[in-house]
């Protein structure tokens, strides 16, 4: 991780702060889904409009697929959240999180002419908080802070020592 060495302390601190805040949010989203009895993504997917609506309808219509999606969604969010907070597999967690959030965004983007039943807590045009969070995760993936502040420090060492041995 050559890049991290060039960060100033302040740069690194803000990156770690951002990482932990997003991690916190994502983890709680996952935990909430776990706690709501009979939670299912069906309600969200039913609302899906724009380019992913056909795909979402297919998921809803197939209870087996829906169950898999629900499971992966809940536990995926929890894993990503823990990864971001602990700085464990940070880059993987950030990319996975960005992908997931981008899928959420594509399911209900605040585009002109699309209206949703679920009331939104803000006013959005094209750009929503979900999209911003997705891009913020991309930033975190490009500027990884886990090897400095996070368990990735040991992971990368472990990987390095292993590859050395193999050499």
């Amino acid at each position, binding site marked *: 991780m050559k890049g991290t060495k060039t960060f100033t302390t302040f740069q690194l601190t803000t990156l770690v702060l951002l990482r932990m805040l997003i*991690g916190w949010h994502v983890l709680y989203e996952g935990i909430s889904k776990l706690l709501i009895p009979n939670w299912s993504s*069906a309600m969200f997917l039913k609302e899906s409009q724009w380019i992913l609506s056909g795909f979402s309808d297919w998921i809803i219509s197939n209870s087996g697929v829906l169950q898999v999606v629900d499971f992966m969604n809940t536990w995926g969010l929890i894993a990503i959240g823990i990864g971001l907070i602990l700085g464990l597999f940070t880059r993987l967690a950030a990319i996975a999180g960005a992908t997931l959030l981008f899928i959420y965004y594509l399911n209900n983007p605040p585009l002109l002419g699309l209206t949703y039943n679920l009331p939104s807590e803000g006013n959005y045009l094209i750009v929503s908080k979900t999209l911003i969070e997705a891009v913020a995760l991309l930033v975190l993936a490009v500027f990884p802070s886990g090897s400095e502040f996070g368990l990735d420090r040991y992971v990368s060492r472990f990987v390095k020592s292993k590859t050395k041995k193999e050499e």
Partner: protein
Amino acid sequence: MAQEEMAKKEKRSLSRRTLLKALAGIPVMGFFTFEAFRKINFDRDKRSRVIKELGLEDLKAPRIVTGSSGKKGDLLRIGFIGYGNRAQQLSHSLGFMHPDEVQRRKQNGTLAEWLEQEDLNVALTGICDVYDLHAEKGLTTAKNEIRPGGNSGQSLPVKRYLSYQDLLNDKDIDAVIIATPDHHHAHITSEAVKAGKHVYCEKSIARTEDELYEVYDTVRNSDRVFQLGHQITQNVVFQQAKEIIKRDILGKICLVETTTNRNTASGAWIRHLDSDGNPKPGDEKSIDWLQWLGSRPYKPFTTDRFYNWTKWFDYDMGMIGQLFTHEFDAVNQLLRIGIPESAVASGGIYYWKDNREIPDVLHATFEYPKKEMTLTYSANLASSRQRGRVFNGHDASMELGGSLSITADWDSTKYREQLDRGIFDSSGPMISINPGSGGDVDAITSATAKYYAARGLTTTNINGRNVDVTHLHIKQWIDVIRNGGQTNANIERAFEEGVACVMANKSYLEKRRVEWDPINRRIV
């Protein structure tokens, strides 16, 4: 030497710093866990407080047995009289499906759900329909071997009967399901019971007073099991609603509002065209038109009359017979209101300006002075705005549909203290019960959940994982045939409902208030 020491020391402190940095996320995780637990406890507390305040802690949902219920009794041989659309749905609930429908469900992934339905140990052995095409459909459905409870098929052959009398005369049929147009319901039910058959009859029970008294007396004086087709009260939420009424959660109920809103041609009983706009098949060669008309005045055959018979008073009572019947039954099952003392109905044909006689906007008001209660029915076939079915209590109101929600009343006497303390919030439903979540009581705490509950948009409904209530209704009928007991929609309930409906219809046609004379048991 000293330099080496220094370097070592520095290395140690460096690695300690490294360790601390690497573990930076741990305290954050700890804080998260602590806060998450606090939040979970807070929510649980709030939820249980609402339920506790209402005294509903022990209100647990009756579990629906979906699997096989063990002892099934002897094979029951069932015949269908009338095999149109509704009969096909009833067949599914009974455990029979046409191969085309099987194919369709295979494609949309809902077949497995149906195959898990309990096998009722019945055989579909008789089909009677005046229309060859419909009868053929019934025969194919009965023979289809893809059925719940394994692909065993049925052991008995199925036979078509050209007249319902032939079917009733066949000793090899134990029970009949009547799904004809309404003008045949009462007299076929009477004849079937006289022929020794158990009867499941679609609503409405009768069109006229005379028909109603005749069928009531016949069924009542026999030992045959009768069930009227009001499946919606089989929904688990109705059993919960019953309990809620019993425990007086709503306070005094002076007004129950029932409604229907629809806004499609099909919803207004214009059904003679297929989805492409072409006329549906059928002519006098393939339809026994005179048998279809029965005792009704002769009218020349048209596909309009054959498919859209609901539009004329000769065959039914319009929205009163087709839709209000369900509403009345729903309220009667919960409040046992019985026959109203008086009824007023008015309305008109304001939107569907075709050749119909039945109104497309209708209001009916039923008075129960002894019970200090009014029941209203308001229907509109030119708007799809959903108005629900609402029990207005002094302390809380209950909206009861596919799910149930209870909202505390702002000016409630009983809940004054809870409202002031903020335990109850009258701005939205405080309790909801969804059949899909097992019917357990859930207090609503989040704003989003409130939003969905208020609109009846629940995960389970959207999921489409609803239990087939018609199956439960038919199952109850069959269970009573085998083991004795009472059906929900027995002849007493059917009679009360029949009187209320005939009263409203009479009031509409005669443009006057009608009353029930309980001594002479007549409508005056």
